[in-house]
């Protein structure tokens, strides 16, 4: 396949030009950590270590790392079910994420959320949401909260190309523009809403972000394979949110190497040709693109790349060991975290019957 948007060189953009060597290596490390984490998760899934759905992000790492790397104190992130990468990119640990996949009580959600529901409000990370586009009004609400409190921040609300055809997304766009809320809707366009190509799901085949024009929202479509391009384009939207409290829609052209979820048997040679996947990996892989760039500018060597990659792999392995050794939730914990007032045993929580199984 060919990408819809040709990559441009944004190395000279101010937000990139000021990056130190450590910054650049740091981004590469983050992308490698996400990839190695998910590779290990997939392997453990196939061994029966975990259940449920698992939607892998591999191939899209530049988008999560490029965008989340720009977050300041009052910038917030919320995303859909393909949420492992954003979680790691905002600073969640592999241990808490892997343990969540394993359904262990040491998981970020104590084993109550699973693959689609990672959260870390202390890192301004609000999930991890399972219903397609269901997070788009929540992102609007985060922006509402930021503005209500008088803070200079933005809500980065990620969605896939399938989510743009849900009604609540349009309601949210209208309100974002009408109320002047600092929300940035980031469409990660990996071309397939489950097994349905954009060709078969959207009437305009070449651009989704453009739909923002109906709501007087600024938008941009960019190639998502190059971290520098992601950063440069996203920074403009963040500045717009911070300085004018106006929303933006960004669309990043990207690609997932695996299926919609691990249960998607038709992704390779079914609804998309195997050659399409191989060509993207060969020509557009975000990790390889950054690696080449850093080697060319003398920031990185093959040896140092291998070292970072090995460290990420070792960290992922250690997280699997941690998850494996962790306890599962107790039966009593089924009833914890349902009601705040009950958990805290406040007067409200002690008044009346809250659970009805007996």
């Amino acid at each position, binding site marked *: 396949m060919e990408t819809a948007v040709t990559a441009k060189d944004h190395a000279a953009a101010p937000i990139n030009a000021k990056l130190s060597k450590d910054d650049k290596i740091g981004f590469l490390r983050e992308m490698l950590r996400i990839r190695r984490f998910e590779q290990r998760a997939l392997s453990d899934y196939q061994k029966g270590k975990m259940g449920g759905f698992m939607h892998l992000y591999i191939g899209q790492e530049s988008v999560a790392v490029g965008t989340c790397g720009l977050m300041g104190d009052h910038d917030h992130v919320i995303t859909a079910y393909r949420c492992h990468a954003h979680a790691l990119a905002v600073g969640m640990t592999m241990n808490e994420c892997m343990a969540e996949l394993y359904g262990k009580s040491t998981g970020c959600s*104590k084993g109550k959320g699973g693959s689609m*529901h990672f959260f870390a*409000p202390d890192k301004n990370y609000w*999930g991890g949401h399972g219903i397609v586009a*269901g997070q788009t009004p929540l992102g609007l609400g985060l922006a509402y*909260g930021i503005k209500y409190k008088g803070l200079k921040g933005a809500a980065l609300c990620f969605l896939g190309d399938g989510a743009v055809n849900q009604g609540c997304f349009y309601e*949210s766009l209208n309100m974002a523009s009408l109320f002047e809320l600092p929300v940035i809707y980031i469409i990660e366009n990996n071309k397939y809403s489950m097994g349905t190509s954009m060709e078969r799901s959207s009437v305009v085949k070449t651009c989704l972000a453009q739909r923002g024009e109906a709501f007087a929202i600024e938008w941009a479509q960019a190639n998502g394979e190059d971290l520098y391009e992601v950063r440069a384009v996203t920074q403009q939207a963040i500045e717009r949110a911070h300085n004018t409290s106006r929303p933006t829609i960004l669309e990043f052209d990207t690609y997932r190497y695996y299926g919609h979820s691990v249960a998607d048997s038709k992704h390779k040679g079914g609804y998309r040709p195997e050659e399409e996947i191989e060509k993207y990996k060969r020509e557009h892989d975000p990790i390889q693109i950054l690696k080449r760039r850093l080697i060319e500018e003398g920031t990185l060597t093959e040896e140092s790349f291998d070292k970072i990659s090995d460290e990420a792999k070792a960290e992922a392995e250690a997280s699997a060991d941690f998850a494996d050794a962790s306890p599962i939730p107790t039966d009593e914990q089924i009833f914890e*975290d349902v009601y705040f007032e009950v958990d805290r045993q*406040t007067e409200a929580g002690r008044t*009346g019957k809250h659970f009805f199984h007996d």
Partner: protein
Amino acid sequence: MALIEYRDALNQAFAEEIERDPNVVLIGEEVAQYDGAYKVTKGLWKKYGDKRVVDTPISEAAFIGMGIGASMLGLRPVMELMFWSFAAVAYDQIVNNAAQIRYMSGGLINCPIVIRGPANGGTNVGATHSHCPENWFAAIPGLKVVNAATAYDAKGLMKSAIRDNDPVLFMENTLLYGEKGEVPEEEYVIPLGKADIKREGTDITLLAHGRAVLTALKAAELLAAEHDINAEVIDLRSIRPLDEDAILASVRKTHRAIYIEENKPFCGIGAQISSMIMEKCFDDLDAPVLRITSLDAPAIYSPKVEQRQLPRPTDIVDKVLSIC
């Protein structure tokens, strides 16, 4: 005590909570400049301004979701649905986001939101605007469901709902907004999860929530005057959390119970409560627990017929006489 309308009691609750807590914000269709479709929020926008009382477009899914997202950041949004029937448009946001976010985040995220509005039939507006959806939501762990029958209860329960740190769905009634009741001048709150004995009695327990409580009280007067039956009337007020103790204590005293509600019978609140009574005090019962509900069809428009679709005092009297 002042004699004020149910709507004004709610209005007082909003005003007091807006003044008490800077994070309280009223949001919904026509709540601000129009003064509320039923004047429940009358004068609040003029008094508290654009920041605290906010009109929205007709976008229930987005504005309810927006309120949920804002509550995650610590705001206390009080969201109006012009009719609770419209919750169907925002169902995903309420059931998948408000109800589940605390659980799925392992307790890391709270959702201190109130969603409120009228939930009743009886106004000849057809089936789409006449739903009583308390059972749609009381069935969902993570949500709380409150239903106020009087002005006094409306104010006290609303203040508790706004201060509660969990999502509270507050169901009102357009037929009750103009009903007057005594409301104290001094501040008070009514805890969620506490039923109220609206009339003490010895012969049968009439259980109800919302406007059906008033219907039950009228029936109780008829039963006393015409049949020498002394009925106890218990108003649940809060459906989830539920005051199980109050219900069981009354049934153990009277040995008979009927649940009255304006909702439909299938898996209604009365079904849950009658099951609970059967399980917990079977040996105290002298008769089967019966239910009186809306007649089990969509709400009919025809004004004279719709009156017959909802429980009337005479329906209750007849049912009581069948077991007393």
